[in-house]
């Protein structure tokens, strides 16, 4: 817009230097008016006229500027903000061809587009100002007046042309020509298109056509008829406003959605028309536009209904909804916490990965060395624990050391263990042990006496228990700790999972380490030999090759039944012989 104006006015397109900020000028001039001494600040200010290029009449306004006065051809810095929206244009032919509609006359469509341009597609405002019936009647009236003042209209038309370029008939002009030349036909149009409204309309139209006939000769009469019309229209409006039985006036009852639907529908139709006429496919941008302008009235209505419902909620409903939201937040937080706890638990259950190679511990020498190092660290720690209670001792050292030791212990135990359940066991031991350590720290005197006894036991067992957990000390603590862990685990694990992880519970555990195979009950030597014979017959070894818990239990029961059966056979043989002896005795006695 501004560039157009610049072209028209033959202005250079270079930007002008910025004038001083308007606000200061205002205060300055206000101060001057109040008679304060502002000479210092005002010394280099001049009262200068300026032109705003967004205006077309060359009005010269004045304000205070610092420094030199405005040049004649200077561009006004705010002129560039005078922008208006580009609304598509169309003419009667387009209308007939592409988007003729029974409920939307050509004039009304033009009227709608005019409003869209004027209010920059602010639909709420457009809807507020939309009053086609009234405005069109005003138009008619004005046209009568305009015939007299041809001048004003001319200039207006020129202006319109300037704005539009040359290609298409302006809606304004078309509108004007229409209503000027064939107002009668126009009236017919209206009649046809709005049959429901015919009674009110036709009288109006008669009046207007009559007025057209005698043209401006009877201005007063025309005025009067117009007024009557207006009054009638207001009456209609009033009726509508009060919710009384509104006249079925399609125009007055057009909703925002109707207007939008029409506008975007016409825009789409124009795009399509343009395409078919020129034969050139739509550019991607236009294609986009075409898609965007698909206005769904039902969707829009639905959206508004939803919004309305949302806004209509009662305080109770709002409170309830808020409560629900808070509740759901709580649930979400709880779920998250549970997930975190579960993840931690799973981490505990997972065997820690062996960090170093275990080759060095696989020889008996290596194992012996390991045991001794563990014992020494254990010893030093105990000593430190004992000394830590003494004031002034470097207790932080132990705190520093203990995690390191724990780490090595747990990794060692994991790597050293071999049985299927052993790895789990050892991993359980880790938290248990730290717990016991904490306990020991808490009451060092107790712990030291307790532990010395254990240490002896430990040393005794150390050779045998090389493969078992080195932290086997702290029996008592372990038990209580284990119970706690078992309880913890029991809560979360099903029987199936327990079986899968090889977890089992014992009422009483004998101290020290033993092999499960050694726990198989041994029978009396004579019986044992016979049982072994039977096992041999069955093709089983005398000891189970893979003594898992299940196998051992089964083996035990098998052995038991074999021995019972053997005993039974023995008794049977004995009775048999007795019977035989008695029989022979009776025969001899006979």
């Amino acid at each position, binding site marked *: 817009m501004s560039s157009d104006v610049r072209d028209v006015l033959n202005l250079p397109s270079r930007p002008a230097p910025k004038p001083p900020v*308007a606000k200061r000028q205002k205060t300055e001039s206000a101060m001057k008016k109040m008679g304060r001494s502002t000479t210092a600040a005002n010394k280099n200010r001049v009262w200068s006229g300026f032109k705003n290029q967004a205006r077309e009449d060359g009005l010269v306004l004045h304000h205070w500027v610092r420094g030199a006065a405005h040049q004649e051809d200077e561009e*006004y810095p*705010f002129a560039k903000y005078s922008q208006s929206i580009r609304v598509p244009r169309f003419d009667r032919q387009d209308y007939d061809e592409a988007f003729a509609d029974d409920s939307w006359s050509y004039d009304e469509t033009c009227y709608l587009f005019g409003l869209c341009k004027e209010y920059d597609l602010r639909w*709420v405002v457009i809807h507020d100002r939309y009053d086609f019936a009234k405005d069109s009647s005003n138009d008619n009236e*004005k046209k009568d007046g305009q015939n007299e003042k041809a001048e*004003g209209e001319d200039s207006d038309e020129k202006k319109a042309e300037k704005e539009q370029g040359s290609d298409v008939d302006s809606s304004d002009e078309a509108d004007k020509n229409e209503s000027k030349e064939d107002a009668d036909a126009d009236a017919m149009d209206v009649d046809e298109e709005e049959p429901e409204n015919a009674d009110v309309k036709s009288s109006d139209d008669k009046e207007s056509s009559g007025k057209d006939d005698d043209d401006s000769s009877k201005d007063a009469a025309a005025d009067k008829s117009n007024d009557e019309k207006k009054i009638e229209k*207001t009456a209609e409006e009033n*009726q509508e406003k009060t919710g009384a039985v509104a006249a079925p006036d399609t125009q007055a009852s057009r909703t925002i959605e109707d207007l939008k639907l029409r506008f975007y529908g016409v825009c789409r139709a124009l795009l399509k028309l343009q395409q078919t006429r020129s034969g050139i496919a739509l550019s991607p941008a236009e294609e986009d536009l075409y898609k965007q302008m698909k206005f769904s009235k039902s969707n829009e209505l639905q959206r508004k209904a939803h919004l309305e419902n949302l*806004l209509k909620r009662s305080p109770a409903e709002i409170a309830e909804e808020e409560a629900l939201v808070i509740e759901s937040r709580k649930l979400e937080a709880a779920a998250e916490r549970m997930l975190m706890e579960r993840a931690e638990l799973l981490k505990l259950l997972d065997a820690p990965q062996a960090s170093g190679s275990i080759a060095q511990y696989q020889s008996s020498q290596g194992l012996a060395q390991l045991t001794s190092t563990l014992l020494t660290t254990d010893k030093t720690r105990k000593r430190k624990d004992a000394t830590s209670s003494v004031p002034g001792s470097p207790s932080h050292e132990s705190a520093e050391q203990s995690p390191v030791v724990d780490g090595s212990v747990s990794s060692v135990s994991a790597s050293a263990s071999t049985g299927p359940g052993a790895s789990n066991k050892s991993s359980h031991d880790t938290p248990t042990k730290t717990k016991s350590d904490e306990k020991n720290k808490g009451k060092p005197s107790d712990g030291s006496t307790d532990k010395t006894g254990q240490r002896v036991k430990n040393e005794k067992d150390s050779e045998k228990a090389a493969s078992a957990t080195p932290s086997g000390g702290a029996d008592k603590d372990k038990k209580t700790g284990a119970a706690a862990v078992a309880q913890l685990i029991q809560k979360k694990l099903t029987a199936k999972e327990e079986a899968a992880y090889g977890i089992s519970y014992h009422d009483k555990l004998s101290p020290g380490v033993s092999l499960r195979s050694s726990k198989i009950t041994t029978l009396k030597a004579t019986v044992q030999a016979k049982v072994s014979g039977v096992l041999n017959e069955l093709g089983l070894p005398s000891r189970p090759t893979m003594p898992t818990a299940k196998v051992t239990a089964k083996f035990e029961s098998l052995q038991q039944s074999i021995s019972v059966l053997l005993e039974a056979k023995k008794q049977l043989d004995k009775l048999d012989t007795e019977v035989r002896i008695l029989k022979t005795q009776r025969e001899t006695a006979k």
Partner: protein
Amino acid sequence: MEIASPMTDGIVSDWDATEKLWRYGLEDILGAQVTEQPLLITEQIWNTDENRKKAMEVAFESLDTPAFYIAKRPVCTLFASGKGSGLVVDIGADIASVTPVLDGLTLFKTSKRSRHAGTYINKHIEALLKASDFDLTPRYLVAARQTGLEPGEKATEYKKRSLLAPVTASFHDFQVSRLIEEFKESMAQVQDTPYTDEAASQAGTDVYSNRVFEFPDGSSVEYGSERFKVAEPLFKPRDFLLEGEELLEAPEVKEEDGDDDDNKDDSKENGKDADSKDKEKGKASKGSKDKGQDGDKDKDKEKPTEKSAATAAKELKALVYTDRTQGPFTTTGISDMIIDAINSCDVDIRANLANNVIITGGTSLIQGFTDRVNEDLVHALPGYKIRIHAPGNLIERKFSAWIGGSILASLGTFHQLWISKKEYEEVGVSKLLEKRFR
């Protein structure tokens, strides 16, 4: 000396007086060169085209300003508080109006207005004071007040001022109305909750505290719940009818199918011919502020009981229901008007409006007014976030439209909107009105 207001219902009705006022203000007080300065005036949104035309004529032909513009008051009020969109609640002397504004454009169809504003409250106060049997002796009649009176005691021996010349009725009425307004400003108050007689008697003086009002003659009266009762009609006009005021349910419907005799065209002054009649009527039925021409009417005002019931009812009806532009005024209270206005707007802008409620106008300075409006809105529109903007400054509250207008006129982008003299001469008034001030 006659005293009259050139404004009726917030729009100019006496152009001779208005022009003189403008000249006095611009030339004598401001010392401005009107032939060099553009002129911006504000108007209520129900201003008529005739009035705009006249304003333009006065500006260009009589004052000879280089440029001229008419801005809408609600828009200016919004600008004064730095907003472009919002709901402007303007409650002045004659008219209380609620206008939604979107991006500096007023929405006519959803705006509301009523006559339950300052002048209406004055009538209630007048009725109250008359009922309590005190003479409304205006200040100009009192030379020295009687001292040492207990509250409730009647001043009988105050010193009267001897007048050099008889005063006109309009002067006297103006003085009486000043007394009433003094009462209104110092005594009237509204509570957060609606006033009812029962509630007032239950709550007692803790809530409805007593205050003493001293009349110019020296007598003073203590008022308690009455102070609240006289202001409540702003919110519940239907529950507090004036004597002789009859409640008309949707009067426009009744009168629609009508013959055109005089007293029935209250509701459809839209047309030009009806307008002049309305002006007369409006003036006659106005409060004490702008009467003056005809003395007999004024006498009627002072003694409403002597009037025939029919005339009184008619005048009251005219006071409450007449509208010159768009159908009748509503009979709802100010809060209900706000709620109605919000609810009648498009659902997309309602939240924005509710969040930008601007309260302005002198009558909004009644104590507790803003709190009460807030309370009512929060109660009635629980789904919205209500935020009320009411400048605490008295000047800002009373003259917000002027402040906004001055802001508007100093904007660089506004200069293209001025109507220049050249434009006025070339394009013509009627076309300008249609193009620019629709």
